[in-house]
Every structure is written in structure tokens, then in C-alpha cells.
């Protein structure tokens, strides 16, 4: 039985953790692990897998395995960046709305409703068409779009927790807003926020992949899993396994993250488990 921080870790969560760690390692050490540089043409296009090219070569004759490793770096890094940014914006906004109440809450909530009323993919599509597909633009756009969803969760959590008496105690003591948010509310909202973080992270992943399909994703020659799937899709008809490597990588990481999230959610839910 494996334990982590004094908690017993169920098998799926363990698998999930292993997947995540493996991916993070791959992303961190891609330049050292990868047998070839990510953009170098090392042979014929669509060469089959062999001892040197473990997964074969891609549409330009670049090593698929190496690109997969570099892709981990780009995809994970990008999604992480998007998610971290969207959480920063969303949580600060949500907490401010919940605690500020009154017109701040009303204004922020209505604005968020408005953004939520816009189809995300279309919105991103138009914005990126206008602003260009610079990585920074991509990250900021997606993070902003994502942050409205985080805002809703954060606000709901803060409203619930804010109604609890220990928060009232702090307010009655005369504590400032910053203390109330960082010391009383945030630590208690962390578990659901982390779970949400996992989910949003995987959505960011798929979202970047969908944008890549429309030609607005990551710029070449950088590799990211989403655009790799797109670049390799034509050879599905040829029974080539190439598109399944990046697609599999996306699926694996998504599943890994979800396993861990499920476990975190279960941990969090335990407190409410006892009935009547």
C-alpha cells in the first residue's frame, strides 16, 4: 500500500501520479532525452519506425519520438501557463466579488455572464485572427476566456466559506480583506480549486489542439501535441500509427490528471460523507 503525506493512495491515482510525473520529467528534460533536435530533418518523410527512429519519422522527416518529447514541453508548458494565469485572474476576481459584495460583485458577475454567453472557440478564433497567433496572445486570450469559469467557482466557494463563522470571527476581530482572503478563505477553498485546476488544465490542452486544427495554434517548427495530430491526420488512411502517438499522449495525460483529480475530490468529499 503506497502512502503519500499520510494518505493512502488508491491504484488509479497512483497511476495518474506516475503519468504526470513521467510527463513532467519528459517536458523538463526533453533536450537531454530526445535523440534528435525537434526541428531537424533526419530522413525521409514518413519513414517507418526502426532502432534509430523509435516511432518513425513525420511529414517532413523529423523524428516523431523527439518531437513528442519536445511537444510535451510545449503542450504542458503552454497549458500550465494558461491555467495558472486563468486561475490567478479567476480566483482573485471571484474572491473579490464574493467578499466585496454589492456593486463590485454585481458588475463582475454580469460581465462574466456576458463573456460566458460567447462561444469560447469562436471568440478565441476571432481574437486570434485579429491579434495574430503570437504565443503570448494565445496564452493571454485562452487564460482570459478560461478565467471566467474559474471566477464562477471561486466566487461560489468564497461565498460558501465566507458565510462560515470562523470567517465572521476574523471580520469581527477587525482583520483586513487581505488576511480574510489569504488566511481564512483560500486554504479552505484549495482542494476544490486544485481539482478544478486539473480539469481546466486538460481542457486547455484540448483547446489548444482544436485551435491548431483551425491553424491558430502553436507556431512551427515548435512541436505541440495538438498540431502534431493535425499534421499527421492525413496518413490515417494509410494505416500509419503516427497520429496516434501525439493523440495517445494527450489522452494519457488527460486520463492521468483526471485520476488524480478524482482522488483529490474524493479526499475532499470525505468530510461530508457521514449521513444523518
Amino acid at each position, binding site marked *: *500500500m503506497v502512502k503519500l503525506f499520510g494518505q*493512502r493512495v*488508491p491504484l488509479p491515482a497512483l497511476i495518474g501520479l506516475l503519468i504526470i510525473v513521467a510527463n513532467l520529467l519528459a517536458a523538463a528534460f526533453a533536450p537531454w532525452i530526445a535523440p534528435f533536435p525537434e526541428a531537424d530533418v533526419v530522413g525521409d518523410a514518413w519513414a517507418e519506425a526502426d532502432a534509430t527512429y523509435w516511432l518513425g519519422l513525420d511529414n517532413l522527416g523529423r523524428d516523431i519520438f523527439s518531437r513528442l518529447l519536445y511537444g510535451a514541453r510545449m503542450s504542458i508548458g503552454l497549458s500550465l501557463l494558461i491555467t495558472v494565469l486563468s486561475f490567478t485572474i479567476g480566483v482573485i476576481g471571484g474572491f473579490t466579488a464574493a467578499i466585496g459584495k454589492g456593486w463590485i460583485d454585481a458588475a463582475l458577475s454580469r460581465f462574466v455572464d456576458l463573456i460566458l454567453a460567447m462561444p469560447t472557440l469562436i471568440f478565441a478564433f476571432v481574437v486570434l485572427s485579429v491579434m495574430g497567433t503570437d504565443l503570448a496572445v494565445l496564452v493571454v486570450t485562452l487564460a482570459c476566456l478560461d478565467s471566467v469559469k474559474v471566477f464562477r467557482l471561486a466566487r461560489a466557494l468564497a461565498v460558501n466559506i465566507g458565510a*462560515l*463563522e*470562523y470567517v*465572521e*470571527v476574523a*471580520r*469581527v*476581530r*477587525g*482583520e483586513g480583506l487581505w488576511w480574510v482572503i489569504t*488566511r*481564512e478563505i483560500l*486554504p*479552505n477553498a484549495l482542494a476544490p480549486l486544485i481539482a478544478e485546476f486539473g480539469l481546466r488544465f486538460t481542457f486547455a490542452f484540448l483547446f489548444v489542439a482544436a485551435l491548431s486544427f483551425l491553424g491558430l495554434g502553436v507556431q512551427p517548427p515548435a512541436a505541440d501535441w495538438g498540431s502534431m495530430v493535425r499534421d499527421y491526420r492525413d496518413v490515417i488512411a494509410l494505416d500509419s500509427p503516427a497520429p496516434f502517438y501525439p493523440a495517445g499522449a494527450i489522452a494519457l495525460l488527460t486520463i492521468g490528471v483526471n485520476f488524480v483529480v478524482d482522488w483529490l475530490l474524493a479526499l475532499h468529499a470525505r468530510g461530508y*460523507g*457521514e*449521513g*444523518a
Partner: protein
Amino acid sequence: MTERTKGDLVLDVSQLRIEVRTDAGPGPVLVDDVSFTLRRGEVLGLIGESGAGKSTIGLAVLGYTRANCFITGGSLRFHGRDIRTMSAAERRALRGPGVAYIAQSAAASFNPAHTILQQVCEIPIQQGLLSPAAARSRAIGLFRELDLPNPEQFGDRYPHQVSGGQLQRAMAAMAMAARPDILIFDEPTTALDVTTQVEVLASFRKLIREHGTSAIYITHDLAVVAQIADEIMVLRQGRMVEHGTADAILHHPQQDYTRRLVAERFEAHGHHAQDSGALLELRHVVASYASLLRVVNDVSLRIQRGDTLAVVGESGSGKSSLARVIMGLLPREAGDIRFRDEMLASRLKDRTREQLRRVQMIYQSPDVALNPNQTLLQIIGRPVQFYFRRSRAEVRARVLELLAMMDLPADYIDRKPGALSGGQKQRVGIARALAAEPDLIICDEVTSALDQLVGEEILKLLKRLQEELGIAYLFITHDLGTVKRIANKVAVMLKGEMVDGGETEAVFAPPYHPYTQLLLSSVPEMRSDWLDGVLAGRAG
């Protein structure tokens, strides 16, 4: 179903043992070596402190255990058949027609999505006992028996549309719908206020007597069980302490624990403060929530140093709201509040830090009043640091001092609230209030979430602190017994207004204010004929 003659053995529980087992391995033993029998028409009272395993036993009789709990020993024979060996289908058939359950909180136990009638008729219809029409007419009959208003239409309402007391009775109707042999009452009146409790209790007793049903009545209030039970079993930490007839337990308790339980009820201690000038004074205070009804209407009162002012009244009468007005959480619309001869601002944020420090509050539910993510050092130390700007070491020393004052071990300082019992948590709440070195502490139902003995300990502690530190209390409660024992002044509230008030002796001595009298007469007394007396008195 067997023929209904009084005296048949309906349930025979012997050497019951229930344990917790999780994936991580075996857990604590919840119930150990408990045996009792139940005959037709007999009522067994199960009594014990919170966590004693009362509910666990009651549920086991239904063949039900909560998640991770398992019956690991003994037998439960219902008409001779062991519930433990029944198949899942047999067990389902047992629930409803065999054994039925009435839970503590009807509000939580009724499904908000269906009407009451749908839920009452569900058992007989689903078990295939009655046609929908027959089930409906039986339900209406039960509503009538239980004195519910408009029995014909009552069932068409949703749970949120009826009052708590009515809902509790509706649950009894639901349990009775399939004419069970055994009814399990799991603290069915604890959530009700005293005046309602009397009526509900009377309905239950009538029901049991008229239908000749056997019952297990779970409670932690001896006075309640005295009105209804033939036999009483006292439990502690999953084990039986004492078992005997109601009279024997009430009047000749054998075990020390039982004796203490019984004794608490009769104890009373008064207290007088010397007049030393007003600490807090309210004059014609008015407040309401968001322009809805006035929850505090023209309340005036006065607290002196060393006073304990008890605010009593039924649920929803505005007691907590009054406390919030004093704290500044609910801004007042009119009236003055003076504290140490200074005017207190209406809003929290307009008060000085010093004013905030001098009035502290202790809450009803220690579970939500303590941040589960902070250690006791942080919880108790924060006011010290915040109000007095002490160094880290000084804060720690002060926290240790306070822990000692609360009779809490010093090594608890790094624990989080999750690792404490309810009573201990409440002590931490008190320590946190004391850390600010206040003049006045507002206690909002500080004992009602605790069981009797633990609550008593807390009261004693508060009293001791008052003697040592001269703090004044504003003590909110709906338990008149407590009031008599600890308060020297009383304010009686009804619908936001103060209807009666003054020195405790004066208020609780004739001539009574009519509402005060109603409250007083509703407090159960440890006489098995008390309920009859009250009902007779009210009828007359």
C-alpha cells in the same frame, strides 16, 4: 406478519458488535456486547452521550449500517429470524412493514423534490401492501391521528412548506404507513424548540399506544425518555452501562455514570453580581434584514460588569440577530448602543480596534467556528498578536497559558481542530475569545451542539472564568434549565420584541408573563407523569 398480541417477543438482540472497517484496515468498535429484547407494545429508551452508538444500534435493527461499518458479532432476531443472515431483498422487505425509522431532522430526511403524501405512501405502495388509493386514505387517517392541520390537503404540500414540528409528525406518519412492528425514534424532538417538543412528544405517545407498536426511543435527554419509555438502557462508548425499567433508572440509578446523568438535571446554581455601573446598554434598538420583517424591535437592556444576562425565546425569535446587532454585523436602524459609556458605531467597520477587542463572541457550532486549516496556536494566538502586537514567543506563551486555563493539554498547541472532540473545540473557541481579554462575551447557544455532560462542563468553565476574570456574559439559549442555573438576569424574546425581563428570580417567579409561563411549562421534567400533567393543564 404475526398476530398482534401484547407481550410477544418481537425483537431479540444479543451480544451485538459493530465495527468500522475501511480499505486501510479495521477501525474502532462502535458497539460492543449490547443485548436487549423488545416485546409487543413495549418502548425501550436508549440514552447516552453523543457518539455513544445509539443511532448505530437503531439502524442495525433495520439491517442497515453506515458506510464502512459492519456487524461483526451477535444476532438480531426479528420474530425469530436473524436480520444478519437475511438476503438484501428480505432486508428491504423488513424495512417499512417490519421496522420503521424516524430520524432526528425531518427537514433533512424528507426529499425536497416530492410532496409529503408521495413520500408517506411510498412504502406501502412500493412494498406492494396497498393500492395507491388505499395508501392515500391511510395516510390521511394518520395525518388526522397526528393532529396535523387540514389532513385531506396536508399531504399535497412540499416539505419546505410546513413547519418543523409538523414535518416531524409527518415523518411519524411515514413510518406508520406500513403498520410496522417496531418504530425506531432517533432523537426525533431534539431539533424542535421546547414548546413544539411537547406537542410532538404527545402525538408520538398517542400513536404508539393506539397501535400497540413496539418502539426504540433514542435520546440524550432523560426527561424526554421518562415520558415515553417502559425500559431504559444507558449506553456509553458503545457499551451498555445500565439497563432497567424507567422508574428504576430514574429513581434508583445503580451506576455512577447514570447517577451523574440524573443528578445534572436537578442541580441548580444561582449567582449575583454587585452593581458596578452599566457595561453595555441598549436603548430602543431596531434592526431588520434587507427591509424584510423586523427581527429586533425596540429592545432595551443593560448589562453590568460580572453579569450574566440570559436571552431566551423560541427559535427564530431574534436572539442571534440581537447578538449580531451588538457585534455590529447587522447594522441597527434605530436606537443606541453604549459600551463603557461610549457610543458603539452601528457598523463593524466604524468601530475602533479597542472596541472590537472588548466584545467577543462564542458560537453555537464549534465545527464551523474554527478554521479547519489552522493550528490552535494560530487560532488562539492570532487575537493576541492582532490586538496586543506581541512577539512570537510571547504569543506562544500566552496560548499555552490559555490552553492550561481551558484544561487542554499543552501539546495540543500544534493540532488542528479536526483532531479535537466537540467539547474540546468549544474550549478552543472560548480560549480564542479570552485571548482578546474582553469585558463582555456573547455566547450564542454554546452548549446546544454538545451533549449534556460536556455542555455542563463548559458552563462550569465559563462560570469559573467569570469568577476569576470578572467578565460579563450575554448568554443566548432556549434551554430554560440552563438559564435558571447560570444567569442572574433574563430577557425573554418573542418575535423580535422583548416581552419580559429582569432579575432571574423575579422573571421565574409568579406572577409570570403568559409567554414565560408557556416556556417554563414546556421544559420536560424528570417525572414520568409530567407530560400528562402538562397536556391536562393545557387542555383545561
